[in-house]
């Protein structure tokens, strides 16, 4: 667990980057720092691994004040990923990934084996291992950055806008990859972003900071969306706050009706499409109850002329149809809180 105890950082020129920050980043969870540019996210993150020391207050790592630990030793136990990946241009990918194991004095063979294992773990072709960073795409470099941060299996991972320099499609796949990795590894992650969608997608807890380095709200994403603490947070969450909330509403309870009573065409148990009166087929939107959120179900319904969503199992077999009325009912329950 990482604990901020009334941490303030005042730079030499008088800028207060972080002001009396107190919060906890629980072990095994992703805590996201989000906020507008200049609100002190990077400063807060760098105080954890002592790239910056606080002016006032303390930061504890599992109860130990980090300023009592020698910086190189502290840092070797904390993975760090940044926006431009920060790979060493003069080292091959495998050696980049093995950096911290080398620093820790691991046997060379063991360090390289570990690096190869991690490349695979983050979804990279082992053939890339012998390349230099310049020969990789931005998304691949970012994956290498994550692999490198994980190489020595540190319990803590600090990530500073790691995915903001890649295009939206690659960003989404990197985010999904991080969620998958985290479910296997359960690291204590502090993740910095200025993108509220990313914060809500990745965070177990989200800390919203305002310029001047003050904590505006610390909450799980669902609470953040339903109960923003003040106007600043509400504005920051943006216009789609209501729709985004649906992301956190389960779909297990939705009422399913028999597809036979509808115009849904089914073949071998799979949905083919909605049959129009004219005989034409319209594509049917689907979702998986239990796995997908109410937002997905609503999205599926909006794609259908009838306004109904098709519930399928993980294999794509039809379970039933969620009518407009059933959706309305679920939505009004959300609105009532």
């Amino acid at each position, binding site marked *: 667990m990482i604990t901020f105890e009334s941490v303030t950082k005042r730079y030499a020129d008088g800028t207060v980057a972080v002001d009396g920050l107190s919060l906890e980043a629980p072990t095994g969870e992703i805590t996201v720092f989000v906020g507008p540019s200049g609100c002190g996210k990077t400063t807060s993150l760098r105080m954890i*691994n002592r*790239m910056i020391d606080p002016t006032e207050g303390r930061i504890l790592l599992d109860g130990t004040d980090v300023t009592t630990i020698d*910086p*190189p*030793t*502290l*840092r*070797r136990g*904390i993975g*760090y990923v*940044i*926006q*431009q*990946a*920060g*790979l*060493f*241009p*003069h*080292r091959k990918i495998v050696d980049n990934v093995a*950096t*911290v194991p080398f*620093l820790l004095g691991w046997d060379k063979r063991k360090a390289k084996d570990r690096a190869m294992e991690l490349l695979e773990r983050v979804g990279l072709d082992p053939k890339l291992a012998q*390349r*230099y960073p*310049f*020969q990789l795409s931005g998304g691949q470099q970012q994956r290498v950055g994550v692999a*490198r941060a994980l190489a020595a299996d540190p319990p803590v991972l*600090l990530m500073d806008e790691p995915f903001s320099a890649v295009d939206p499609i690659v960003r989404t796949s990197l985010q999904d990859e991080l969620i998958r990795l985290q479910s296997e590894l359960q690291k204590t992650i502090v993740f910095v972003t200025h993108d509220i969608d990313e914060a809500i997608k990745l965070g177990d807890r989200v800390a919203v900071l305002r310029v001047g380095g003050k904590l505006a709200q610390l909450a799980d994403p669902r609470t953040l969306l339903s109960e923003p603490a003040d106007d600043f947070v509400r504005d920051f969450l943006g216009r789609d706050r209501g729709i985004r909330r649906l992301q956190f509403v389960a779909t297990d309870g939705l009422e399913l009706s028999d597809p036979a009573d509808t115009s849904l065409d089914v073949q071998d148990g799979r949905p083919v499409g909605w049959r129009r009166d004219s005989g034409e087929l319209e594509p049917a939107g689907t979702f998986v109850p239990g796995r997908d959120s109410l937002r997905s179900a609503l999205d599926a319904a909006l794609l259908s002329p009838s306004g109904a969503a098709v519930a399928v199992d993980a294999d794509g077999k039809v379970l039933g149809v969620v009518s407009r009325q059933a959706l309305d009912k679920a939505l009004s329950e959300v609105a009532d809180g």
Partner: protein
Amino acid sequence: MDDGQPLFRWSWVVSNWDNDSPNSIVNLLQAHIVMSAVPVIVGLLVSLPLGLLCVRWRWLYQPVSGLMNAVYALPSLALFMILLAVTGAEPVTVIIPLTFYAMAVLIPAVVDGLASVPEHVRQSAVAMGFTPLRRLVQVELPIAVPVVLAGMRVVAVSSISLVSVGALIGQGGLGNFFTDAYQRDFYTPAIAGIVLIVLLALVADGALVLLQRLLTPWMRARRSA
């Protein structure tokens, strides 16, 4: 020059190749190599720490580079003459000024080379737990190599060329052939000297290019990518 005399006489080359004279081709070639290589090597060894100090204490860079540029502006012949009074007509009288010239190029090369390390690379090295010394040796200096080697190439070729000016105090390596040719109105030694100096410069430059390829495979990778 007699009208019947050829511009270049091979027989002179053959008889002067490796005779007992201190002015044989082989001896002067050796002297030339030593007098041009020592300034480059010593210049690099001195410029590295000085460049590092200039990076560490930024305020040092202006005075140091100003001083080096002033030295660079002094004509080499004038420097040779001044030093002649102190160190005599010895190779070292040529080597010292050339070493300063080398430093005038190599100190900025070291500073620029280290400045060419991207900030995010430096930061991530810090964040991964490199100690400052290890970061310098394993990350920053290797990345600075291409810029420093580019400086080395300039310095090597200009040293090889400048050594010949030392002929005016009798320490010019192959340049001694130029004064010799002028005094005797006999051009073969001068031509031989020029050809050998140019060859020497080409070989030195080629060797440094080769060294760069060996030291920075990642640059080649970038070029072909």
